[in-house]
């Protein structure tokens, strides 16, 4: 008997298989008495505060002001920055920096940073979610360089975890980012900066 057959036979012997419809009905009966959101108002302020709590840099800018703010941030970080080829061109209109569009993975370690958009964000937990679709590049782009600048549009910010998950497509690879890389492995205290980007900057476009 194969391992698969044997394990499933053991399990079916303990908790017998039932029709799919019965299982679905049981699943629907699971109590979900928790809140869909913990805050109704001031969602953007909450998001900014919660991201900053992780010691990320948070900036707020009008959509029209984005090119100037991005240009300033990149100017403060000498070296080449990787950007997805489909990042909105207007965002980089003011940038004087050396930009590498769609860099090869092998070149990422030589870059100073990366600039991307995101797919959604969660105010309650200060989390930004990338689905590595439009304007975000493949997963390695925002991982290997030591600096990550993310532009979050106000409309992308969900108040809490349940509503954010509803906006996401599970068939895409997802990366949820809550602050810069950190560890709690030394005496259970949080220290920023291990393998992922040690500096995270977030620009909220309103």
């Amino acid at each position, binding site marked *: 008997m*194969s*391992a698969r057959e*044997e*394990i*499933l036979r*053991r*399990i079916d012997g303990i*908790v017998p*298989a*039932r029709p*799919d419809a019965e299982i679905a009905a*049981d699943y629907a009966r*699971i*109590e*979900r*008495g*928790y*809140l869909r959101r*913990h805050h109704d108002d001031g969602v953007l302020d909450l998001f900014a505060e*919660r991201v900053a709590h992780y010691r990320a840099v948070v900036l707020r800018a009008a959509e029209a002001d984005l090119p100037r703010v991005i240009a300033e941030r990149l100017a403060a970080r000498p070296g080449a920055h990787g950007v997805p080829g489909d990042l909105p061109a207007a965002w980089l209109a003011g940038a004087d920096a050396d930009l590498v569009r769609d860099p090869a*993975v092998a070149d990422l*370690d030589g870059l100073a940073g990366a600039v991307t958009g995101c797919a959604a964000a969660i105010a*309650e*937990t200060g*989390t930004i979610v990338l689905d*590595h679709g439009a304007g975000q590049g*493949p*997963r*390695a782009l925002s*991982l*290997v360089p030591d600096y990550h600048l993310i532009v979050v549009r106000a409309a992308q910010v969900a108040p809490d*975890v*349940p509503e954010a*998950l509803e906006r996401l497509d*599970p*068939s*895409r*690879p*997802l*990366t*949820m*980012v*809550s*602050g*810069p*890389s*950190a*560890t*709690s*492995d*030394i*005496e*259970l*205290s*949080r220290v920023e*900066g*291990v*393998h*992922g*980007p040690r500096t995270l900057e977030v620009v909220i476009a309103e």
Partner: protein
Amino acid sequence: MTSQNAMPTYLGMPSFPDAARRAVADPRLRGNLAHATGTIRERRADAVAELDDWGALRESGKQIKDHVLANLGHYLRVLEEKVTEAGGTVHWARDAAEANRIVADLVKATGETEVVKVKSMATQEIGLNEALAEEGIAAYETDLAELIVQLGHDRPSHILVPAIHRNRSDIRDIFRKEMPDAPADLSDSPADLAEAARRHLRAKFLSAKVAVSGVNFAVADTGTLVVLESEGNGRMCLTLPETLISVMGVEKIVPTMRDLEVFLQLLPRSSTAERMNPYTSTWTGVHPGDGPRDFHLVLLDNGRTDTLADEVGRQALRCIRCSACLNVCPVYERAGGHAYGSPYPGPIGAILSPQIRGIGSEVDASLPYASSLCGACFEACPVAIDIPEVLVHLRARAVEDGPRHPVEKAAMTAAGWTLRSPARLALAQRAASASRRIVAPRGRIRRLPGPLGAWTETRDAPAPPKESFRAWWARTDGGRAPDPGHGTDPAGPGGTEDAKREKGEDA
């Protein structure tokens, strides 16, 4: 069935009381543990108090996990189908040896002799690193605490922070001695230590062709796998190599993506006391042009179906490995993780290890007793595992199935023989009454002679009564016959207390 080697006990591992006695006598270890668990306890309490609906989240988490366990065969089949549809390959392993064999063969098929690893309890449980080493494959741990344990030739002592027994100066000493590229003047500041780990592992991440990970959650209806981490080593391993092999216990399933809304709130707050951990990665099979080209999922039984078969014990399979129960446990704080003789220490380890491994060894038979039953672990558990209930249940099983002291075994066999016959019982009770003046001159037995002495080392035993309840009943017709010799106390020969005890009323 579970073999005793399904999850190897550490070589020469003494039973919990022996190991704990040594640990408690180590002031440095106790200091490190008290500091670390004290810090996290306070912060976790704040993180949990921030959510008004924590109780409701906890109840939902419990119900989702119970629902999966009650329909495990269904959800495993769905998960297998969805992962396969998305371009992954699913493997099944009955036990540790089979899982290790599968992983080793997959690595060999790539022609590589090195793998990078994301911290994973499942691969600790099966001893994967050791098994790979025997096949000439080097496994590099990339989580900071796992790296500290690996470089220090040490064993993990905590689920979340395997090097919790090491303080910052211990870590600096290990890095200076064992990390070839560590700066000679490395300080013990956590930021410098983290920087040293970053430099040490960067080249490995960039050149690794094969990675091995665990899995926090597997979403059945989409085939999506989820890993929560902090440092970015997980993202490196899940993204950069060409081949990814993930090992997960069969119980790690949630039915739909929606269920993550519960667990992504419960797990980070319970484990690191954060609103959210720095990085959570999800992937579904293979994503062309982004990440590994080859993905393998190993579904591991290794004693989990045996655990599922125990209706009281199966709730241990709800565990999401947050380690909150360790951090609140007074026994763990003093004894440390190594005393539990398993990669799963603390209260959850005390109920998980004996069930996964079977109660075949001294250490596993002793684990259900590694608790004062204070209940702090149950209070802290984000999926409401009633750990004290399972501990008490496993104590009964340890007595039935566990290894026993030969004298205890002989005594129990004799007791069984005696109790099966009223005549033999009466005879034995008369003999016991006759012995009271010899063994218990002051009414208490301080020390029993011969091999029974071990039992009285830590406790006094009451002396046998002058007259047994049965003898008293026969003589007085249950207290109805007048008896000038012994008085007419209707409660019996030894007064109310003794009578109750003999009838087992206050047991």
